[in-house]
C-alpha cells in the first residue's frame, strides 16, 4: 500500500466559533458545527488503528482524493466521533472506494443516493451502534457521527460538494449520516454477515448505495403472508431506480414483522422469493415514453400487454434482508441507486487483514 500526502496543519484563531466560521466558509463542513480537528484530537483518534497514518485506504472520486488513514481521522474528529469508532470508518471508506460500489456514480449522480452503513458482529455491540428504536433517526452518538464522518470524507477528500462534485437534484437527509447496526438478537434468521459467509464473531461493514428509508406500516396483518403482501406492495412502486434497473434493494424488517413472518415458516430466502414474485408494478399504469424503449429493454414484458408487470429485482437473491428497530408494526425498505451500485461487505480488520474480534485489538498501548 503506497502512502498519500500528509494533511496540512493550519494556525487558526482559538475560539470555537471562529474556527467553525473558517471551516464552514472553506466548504469543509456539512453545514453543522464541527469539532476542531486539533493535532491532539487527531493523534487520539490515530491511537485506535494499527495502520500508518499516511497509508491510503482508497481513492475517492470525483477529485480522485487519496483517503489516507490520517485524513479519515481528521474528518472523524470533525464529525464528533469517539476515537474507537475509527476502525469502522476506515473499513467503510474502503468499501465505498471499491469499484463494485461505484463511487464515481454515487458521488456525482443527480440521484439522492447515500451510503447506508450496516454494522454486524460484536464490534457493533461494543460501540453501542443503535440497532433498536429509532436506529435510522437521531439520538445515538455512534450512528450520528460514524455516518457523518463518512460523508465528510466523501466531501473533503473526494470532492463531493453539493452543486459541483455532488449533483444530487434534491439530496436526502440520509446524506448527513446513514449508519445502523443490525438487530441480531431479534433476527429470527442468520444475521447479514453470517448469511454472507462470515463467522458470527467477525464484525463487518456492509455499504449499500441507498435512498433514505421508505416506511412500510402494517398493524393489521397477523400472518407472514399478509405482512409480506404489504411489503411487496410498498416495494413494487413507480419511481425508484430498482424498478428501472433492478440492482440490490434493502428490506429492513422491524423485529415484530420479522417474528410473525418467521413464525409462519418463511425463511429469509422465502422472503426474498416472495418479494421477487409479488413486488411488481403494472406497466399499464406507467407512461408510454417510460415503458417503450426504457423499461422494455430491461424486462421481458411486452409493453403493450395490459397485464404486463415490471419487477424490481432481477433475481430473488439480489435483495438484502436485515432486521432492525424496536417494537412496533413498522418495517422499511431502502431503494438503491439501482443497477449502478452493488453492496460491498468487508470485515473490520487489522492492517494484515485479520478480522478483529474486539475493538480493543486496535488500541495502541
Amino acid at each position, binding site marked *: 500500500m503506497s502512502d498519500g500526502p500528509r494533511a496540512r496543519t493550519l494556525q487558526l484563531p482559538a475560539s470555537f466559533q471562529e474556527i467553525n466560521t473558517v471551516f464552514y466558509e472553506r466548504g469543509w463542513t456539512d453545514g453543522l458545527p464541527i469539532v476542531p480537528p486539533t493535532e491532539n484530537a487527531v493523534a487520539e483518534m490515530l491511537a485506535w488503528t494499527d495502520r500508518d497514518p499516511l497509508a491510503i485506504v482508497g481513492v475517492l472520486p*470525483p477529485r480522485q482524493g487519496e483517503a489516507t488513514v490520517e485524513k479519515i481521522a481528521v474528518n472523524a474528529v470533525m464529525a464528533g466521533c469517539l476515537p474507537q469508532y475509527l476502525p469502522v470508518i476506515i473499513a467503510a471508506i474502503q468499501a465505498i472506494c471499491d469499484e463494485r460500489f461505484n463511487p464515481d456514480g454515487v458521488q*456525482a449522480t443527480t440521484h439522492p443516493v447515500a451510503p447506508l452503513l450496516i454494522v454486524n458482529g460484536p464490534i457493533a455491540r461494543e460501540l453501542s451502534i443503535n440497532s433498536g428504536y429509532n436506529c435510522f433517526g437521531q439520538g445515538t452518538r455512534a450512528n450520528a457521527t460514524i455516518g457523518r464522518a463518512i460523508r465528510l470524507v466523501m466531501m473533503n477528500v473526494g470532492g463531493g460538494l453539493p452543486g459541483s462534485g455532488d449533483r444530487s437534484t434534491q439530496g436526502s437527509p440520509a446524506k448527513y449520516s446513514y449508519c445502523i447496526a443490525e438487530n441480531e438478537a431479534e433476527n429470527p434468521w442468520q444475521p447479514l454477515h453470517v448469511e454472507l459467509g462470515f463467522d458470527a464473531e467477525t464484525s463487518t461493514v456492509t455499504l449499500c448505495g441507498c435512498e433514505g428509508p421508505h416506511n412500510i406500516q402494517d398493524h393489521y396483518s397477523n400472518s407472514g403472508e399478509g405482512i409480506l403482501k404489504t411489503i411487496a406492495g410498498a416495494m413494487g412502486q413507480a419511481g425508484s431506480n430498482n424498478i428501472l434497473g433492478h440492482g440490490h434493494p434493502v428490506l429492513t424488517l422491524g423485529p415484530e414483522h420479522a417474528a410473525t413472518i418467521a413464525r409462519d415458516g418463511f425463511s429469509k430466502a422465502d422472503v426474498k422469493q416472495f418479494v421477487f414474485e409479488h413486488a411488481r408494478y403494472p406497466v399499464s399504469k406507467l407512461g408510454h415514453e417510460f415503458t417503450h424503449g426504457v423499461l422494455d429493454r430491461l424486462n421481458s414484458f411486452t409493453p403493450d400487454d395490459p397485464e404486463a408487470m415490471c419487477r424490481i429485482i432481477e433475481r430473488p437473491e439480489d435483495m438484502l434482508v436485515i432486521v432492525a428497530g424496536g417494537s412496533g408494526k413498522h418495517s422499511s425498505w431502502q431503494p438503491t441507486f439501482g443497477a449502478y451500485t452493488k453492496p460491498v461487505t468487508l470485515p473490520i480488520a487489522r492492517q494484515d487483514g485479520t478480522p478483529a474480534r474486539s475493538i480493543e485489538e486496535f488500541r495502541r498501548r
Partner: protein
Amino acid sequence: MLEKEGVPTAVVGTDEFLSLFKLESRSRGLPDLPVAITKHPLGGLREPEVLAKAEALVPQAVAAVLRGGAA
C-alpha cells in the same frame, strides 16, 4: 478510458455539467479531454429541439476530436 486506449474520444454534455466534467477529467489525468457542449437540458425536450441540438453538436464533437483539446 477509451482515450487512454488510444481511441479519439469526445464527451458530449450540457453546460450545466461542464464544471463537473472538468473536475473529473483533470483529476483523472486527462485535462485536455475533448468535450462538445450544448445548453442544458437534454431531457424534457420535443423531438425537433433534440434533433436541432444533435445537429449542432456533431461538428463540435468532430472538431473537438480532431483538435484533441477541450472545446
